[in-house]
């Protein structure tokens, strides 16, 4: 298996940054080919597909700026009636302010915890050759592949029984608490992050640890002062990816939060539909607002995002 760039140049610690760059910009020398018959066909095909692909979003964006009365009178195939009113309205009726905060309360701790714990596990798995290492890695990775719905019932029942101090959750139990959601999300993401990070850490030259050990640095110090700073590229890629995944997470939040007021934004979509029932312009504006954070992350950190998505899956 010699495909992925990660597999071929395993001694280079900057390899991830390289991979990230390669994904979007082609490393091969560019041969400009003249625009002739088959190429034109290809461009036309790709252009049509690309426009078709963006259509649902563009359609939503377009209508989100239009007045409901205008489209009701003139139909959706019309032009005009532009307004920002839908956004103001959607924000208020959908209680987006609170929902975004809820998403924040879940996403930020879960991402930090996931990255920290995965880095710890990966450090040990990559650095010390226990006999068990492969088994352990398999244990983490396989956990990541199980369908989460299949684990719901025991988790739901257990969370219902586990008491929590009321300052953490006014219901006094782990069910319907942010903490419970953070823990579950973390447990589910650890597998993937550990795999990616341990692959990366294996590419770090072992000599750096040896000299650190000679200088008397403890393992903890080596981890915090050597490994973590060197792992900045994969950590950045994973952070980007995890932020969007946990922000987008729907199932656990829907199932483990019983109180609609606590729902993060992704799980609130259903409530929004009730709020906006026949007004599709309002619904469009709501969709765009919910999509915005991930779209921003995507455009600003596109490289990290793509690297994160592909580094787990393409090397091999």
């Amino acid at each position, binding site marked *: 298996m010699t495909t992925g760039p990660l597999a071929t140049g395993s001694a280079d610690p900057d390899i991830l940054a390289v991979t990230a760059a390669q994904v979007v910009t082609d490393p091969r020398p560019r041969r400009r080919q003249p625009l002739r018959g088959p190429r034109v066909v290809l461009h036309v095909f790709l252009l049509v597909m690309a426009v078709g692909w963006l259509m649902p979003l563009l359609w939503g964006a377009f209508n989100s700026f239009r007045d409901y009365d205008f489209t009701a009178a003139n139909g959706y195939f019309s032009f005009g009636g532009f307004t920002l009113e839908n956004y103001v309205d959607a924000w208020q009726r959908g209680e987006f302010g609170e929902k975004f905060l809820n998403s924040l309360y879940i996403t930020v701790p879960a991402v930090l915890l996931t990255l920290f714990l995965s880095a710890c596990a990966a450090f040990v798995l990559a650095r010390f050759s226990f006999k068990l290492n492969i088994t352990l890695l398999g244990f983490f990775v396989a956990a990541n592949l199980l369908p989460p719905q299949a684990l719901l019932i025991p*988790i739901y029942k257990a969370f219902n029984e586990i008491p929590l101090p009321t300052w953490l959750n006014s219901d006094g139990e782990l069910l319907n608490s942010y903490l419970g959601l953070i823990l579950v999300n973390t447990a589910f993401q650890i597998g993937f992050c550990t795999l990616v990070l341990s692959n990366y850490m294996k590419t770090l030259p072992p000599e750096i640890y040896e000299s650190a050990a000679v200088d008397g640095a403890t393992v903890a110090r080596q981890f915090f002062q050597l490994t973590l700073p060197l792992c900045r590229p994969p950590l950045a890629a994973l952070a980007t990816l995890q932020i969007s995944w946990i922000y987008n997470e729907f199932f656990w939040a829907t199932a483990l939060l019983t109180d609609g007021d606590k729902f993060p934004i992704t799980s609130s979509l259903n409530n929004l539909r009730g709020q906006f029932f026949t007004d599709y312009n309002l619904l469009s504006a709501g969709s765009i607002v919910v999509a915005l954070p991930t*779209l921003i992350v995507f455009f600003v950190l596109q490289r990290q995002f793509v690297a994160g998505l592909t580094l787990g899956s393409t090397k091999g």
Partner: protein
Amino acid sequence: MTAIEGPTAAPAPAPRTSRRRTRRLTGSDRSVVGLMVAVPLLFVLVLVWLPALASVILSFSRWEGFGGLDAIDWIGIENYKNIATNYPPFWPALWHNLIWVVFLFLIPTPLGMFLAVLCDKQLRGSRIYQTSFYLPVVLSLALTGFIWQLIYSRDQGLLNAVLGTSVDWYGDPRVNLWAVLVAFGWKHTGYIMLIYLAGLKAVDPGLREAATVDGASEARTYFSVIFPVMRPINLIILVITVIESLRAFDIVWIVNKGRNGLEVIAALVVQNIVGEASRVGFGSALATIMLLISTVYVVIHLRATMREDR
């Protein structure tokens, strides 16, 4: 997208010999190392593996979910018998999951691979095309279902306006599965394209040149040279496609909570536990069926991923 999102990399053969020379650890270092691996391990054990095991065990029980653990009746395979013979949504759900996976294999997965091959052709503006195709990947599956309402709505949707029909695409049980599959495929295609494209970029350009020198056509080069070389990635794409079909939940839940034409197994499990329903044993039996199906791809995946490490 809950991603399995492919934890798949096969770790590179690392300079193992030098790593073995790790110095003996002092006592406190030893406990730090132990802690660093034990805490994450505990998370995964307690929140993933134990619940999986508990699902299997509880599937042989009848328990209304209250009255403590001694209120559990052990009833053998009764739940499974009930599911097969006395639970109308089960067979449709299984069938829908099957349609789901077959559909993905027939259209979005090959389409994503095809688009990746085209985007790999060093065209001008290739990045813009790529970006359009994988833009849906960043949106949540729930939001995907939500956005497609604007297309599928009976009275205000784009599709009916274009076709001049008045079909309730999300509501009519004869068509809603297909409507959902198209929306799902919209996202899935981009995801497959992204992963496949990254794989293609890593293929040794020399292979392609050699084939061209030998006079092979582009299609021939792809099918006899590139495709076989991409075997590990093909395997990953296979696993991702199966996983995504089994995990189909968010989008059907957002449309109608998995009823009326959109039954899928994942949704049935949730219906048996959330809200008023509390059929622990019965729901667990459904969950166990999911787990059984998933072991197939987990094994394929682990073998593909871990082989290099042995």
